[in-house]
């Protein structure tokens, strides 16, 4: 890593940031799941875009639909019903045939999952698992193995050549997460979706994995969609942040602006509710209640029962999208548009 990266990114981001060319454009994506009794809407009408090489974070709590959204982008979960459009590099993913979709996975878009302990096949060697992405594409065993080795080297797995033939149980948590990362990166995708990639790891390991991800994303100009619940991780990694609550994106903005001027009461509450390791405060401002489960979503603005600035309209009318002076896309009745 050289001066280059530091200059392009800088400690202080450029005030006007050109929107990179769109790679992924999600339009009015809704995700439903049919249970025995009823149809439950897990994600309601979300739209967002990711540019080439851009790092976007999708932040949310349990039940917010962040992981479901992530899996929907690759159509990984066959039990949910998807509607809307997911444009990836000009193709509508939702209208592809299963085999066309399979060809996109691994090749154009890769995914990393939360728990490195359970993400790997215990009976297959590391080398075979990393190379599998390529083997599926019909690349020869030798070439696939060589490229698997290259990726593991790129991810700074020590003595990677010797370790190709070892099994997952011989690796530590951080090492396994690198292998999982290698499986997603070996096909040289344009978009990497990382679903809570460091939640199961200790802070120091987490930091190293995030650094690696940062470095590779810059080097390969790889777009990254980071799914997390941790505002701290978001702050250090993402260019842009989307905050999801109960199946909807309630706020979206450049990372710096979002942290400096959170607009939605939920975003603000979230930032104030988290203790910090660098300052001492007397008391945390807490958000009352708990995030709703998708089957029992409140009417109107789904956040209104917990919101300290709720108005009469909030419980009945779902707020539309408004753009605030700080550039945030926000769904809240406090911000006109209505």
């Amino acid at each position, binding site marked *: *890593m050289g001066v280059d*990266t*530091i200059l392009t*990114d*800088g*400690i*202080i*981001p450029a005030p006007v940031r050109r929107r990179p060319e769109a790679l992924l454009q999600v339009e009015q994506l809704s995700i439903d799941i049919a249970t025995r009794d009823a149809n439950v809407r897990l994600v309601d009408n979300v739209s967002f875009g990711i540019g080439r090489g851009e790092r976007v974070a999708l932040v949310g*709590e*349990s039940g917010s639909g962040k992981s479901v959204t992530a899996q929907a982008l690759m159509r990984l979960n066959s039990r949910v019903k998807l509607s809307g459009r997911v444009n990836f590099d000009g193709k509508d993913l939702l209208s592809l045939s299963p085999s066309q979709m399979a060809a996109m996975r691994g090749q154009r878009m890769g995914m990393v999952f939360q728990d490195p302990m359970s993400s790997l096949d215990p009976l297959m060697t590391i080398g075979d698992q990393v190379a599998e992405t390529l083997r599926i594409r019909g690349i020869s065993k030798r070439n696939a193995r060589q490229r698997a080795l290259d990726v593991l080297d790129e991810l700074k797995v020590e003595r990677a050549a010797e370790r190709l033939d070892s099994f997952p149980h011989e690796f530590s948590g951080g090492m396994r997460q690198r292998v999982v990362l290698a499986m997603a990166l070996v096909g040289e995708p344009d978009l990497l979706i990382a679903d809570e990639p460091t939640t199961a790891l*200790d*802070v*120091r390991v*987490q*930091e190293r994995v995030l*650094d690696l991800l*940062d*470095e590779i994303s810059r080097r390969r100009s790889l777009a990254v969609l980071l799914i997390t*619940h*941790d*505002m*701290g*991780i*978001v*702050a*250090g*990694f993402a260019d842009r942040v989307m905050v999801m609550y109960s199946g909807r994106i309630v706020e979206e903005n450049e*990372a*710096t602006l979002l*942290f400096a001027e959170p607009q939605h009461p*939920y975003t603000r*509450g*979230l*930032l104030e*509710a*988290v*203790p*910090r*390791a*660098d300052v*001492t*405060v007397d*008391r*945390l*401002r*807490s*958000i*009352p209640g*708990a*995030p709703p489960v998708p089957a029992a979503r409140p009417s109107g603005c789904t956040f209104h029962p*917990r919101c300290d600035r709720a108005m009469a309209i909030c419980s009945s009318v779902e707020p539309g999208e408004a753009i605030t002076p700080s550039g945030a896309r926000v769904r809240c009745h406090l911000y006109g548009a209505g």
Partner: protein
Amino acid sequence: MLQIDHISKSFPAGRGQRTMVLDDIVLNVDEGQSVGLVGESGSGKSTIIRCALGLAQPDSGRVSYSGIDVHRASRFDTLRFRRDVQLVFQDPYASLNPRMTVEELVGEGLLVHKLETTAAGRRARVVEMLRMVGLGEEALARYPRSFSGGQRQRIAIARAVVIRPKLLICDEPVSALDVSVQAQVINLLQDMQAQLGLGILFVAHDLAVVRHLCTTVAVLERGRIVEHGSREQVFDAPQHPYTKALLEAVPIPDPAIGRARRTERQLAT
């Protein structure tokens, strides 16, 4: 009040070797004091808790509570120790018996320690306790599964605190909760401590939470306490490299700090 006095513990690691899990741990919690114990996974946090509660036997050293040697106590003293020292678990889903109602769960301590001998008296105390943790009377007949994670953790706290213990050991009590709910439970613990004069031993991997709740902090690295001091000493002027490394790795919800740190690390390599 609670004195963990030079305890060590090791486990067999095959081929006649033993791995040291705890190495000469010294830690005291005084009445009304809140002590934080920070460590990563595998640092020995849970072994310390188990030893402190008398559930595991250290190889050497002793744990004493107000003069009671926890591991060699008489029946009577053990019962007193059980009444005075309680635990709040990490996982609010696994720590409540799914087949007991909230009334039974919260009232069990009163029953076991014969603090309220009548059912009506127990119920009154349970209701009072539930109010303190922010739950209503209507919770009495319900089972844990109908509550959210945050509410279950309140029930767990009520269950532990209803018998008015002097020391509450908290084992990562908020790490399994949603971010927006964590603050509620943290605040509740603070309230309990202020109202009841509880001593708290707060064990966690999350440095931010520990900084928020504890005035004294110990840092555990692979079974050894490497740094031990007041909150300000440990967080603002850490001495041990391990503490420094941990603090530097904790994500801070501020993009400027996050990027500056990454740049620093990249320059260092």
